């Protein structure tokens, strides 16, 4: 199972795909799926299981997903290598981009760019929540939970942990 050449190819592919994953790693998930299945490293079933479990876990879901794939290909070293290949290149880019942006912090053009970009960003965050809701809301009561959570967090100073915990309890009793 442990094949250094296979691991090298997997890591290179993950580094490449994560470097072009504009909009987040899920946007290149179909490419990763095609690549690992075509190489015979994972079955469709493995891929679906890995995805379900990594999304249920707290923490960086997609990095975890890639570490499961690496684990399947080359054991524990494979897991580490795949995780690093997934997050190191984008991190270097984030750092460089932020440094560049910050250097021109007081430039007039940046004040204008900021005023134009900020509302877009706010709209995109709301859209991100809505897209999450679409997969998370499996029934009308769970739509209610999403709406109630949004309203509570918008209009009260309640700690979100209470809201999440309450919703989890609601689910545990099978209401959703």
């Amino acid at each position: 199972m442990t094949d250094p050449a296979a691991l090298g190819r997997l890591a290179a592919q993950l580094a490449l795909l994560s470097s072009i994953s504009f909009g987040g790693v899920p946007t290149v998930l179909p490419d990763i799926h095609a690549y690992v299945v075509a190489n015979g490293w994972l079955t469709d079933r493995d891929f679906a299981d890995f995805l379900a479990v990594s999304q249920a876990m707290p923490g960086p879901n997609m990095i975890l997903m890639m570490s499961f794939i690496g684990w399947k290909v080359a054991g524990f070293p494979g897991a580490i290598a795949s995780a690093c290949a997934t997050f190191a290149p984008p991190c270097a880019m984030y750092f460089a981009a932020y440094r560049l942006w910050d250097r021109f912090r007081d430039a007039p053009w940046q004040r204008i760019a900021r005023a134009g970009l900020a509302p877009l960003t706010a709209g995109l965050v709301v859209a991100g929540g809505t897209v999450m809701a679409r997969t998370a809301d499996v029934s009308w009561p769970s739509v209610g939970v999403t709406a109630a959570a949004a309203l509570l967090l918008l209009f009260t100073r309640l700690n979100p942990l209470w809201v999440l915990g309450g919703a989890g309890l609601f689910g545990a009793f099978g209401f959703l």
Partner: protein
Amino acid sequence: MGRPAVPSPRVALSVLFYEFLKVSLMASGGGVAWAHRITVDRRRWLNDAEFTDIVSVCQFMPGPNVVGIAVCVGAKLRGLLGAVAATAGFVLIPGIVGFSLGTLWFRHTGVPLLQNILIGISAAAAGMMIATGMRLLRAYRRRLPALLFAALAFAGIAIGQFPLLLVLLILAPLSIATAAIAGRVR
């Protein structure tokens, strides 16, 4: 815009590590909401406008955007070392825990109680993310063009389901041009 962040003395690297560890552990799926709560509401390292700024930069970049927030907040507060500390906090321990639990899970799949709990949590997490976006928009509530562009960005992703990069490349120049004209008129 908004309340200014309290100018803090040097933030310790261990604090950056610890706070982003918290963001990572609490945020299943919607990390932006927890990153906002911890860096803006609790620690006051940034104000709303600075936070939005960082999310804007990250949105244009490839990769896991929430990790990008850790990198940028760390870089803003403590430079390269800060970026490394925040990112390590975000990735290291949750990665090890998630990996161990996950490999265990593959042997005992399908515990229904756990799945039901997760359904509830993810529904509420989606609501939390929506609330965060609304709060970031609050600063612009009196500016009609800003609200219009926020609505268009929302619709492009949530309704049209277009790729993020496409939505940004079309809307960003228009929105920035509008902001430039509005600035000149005022």
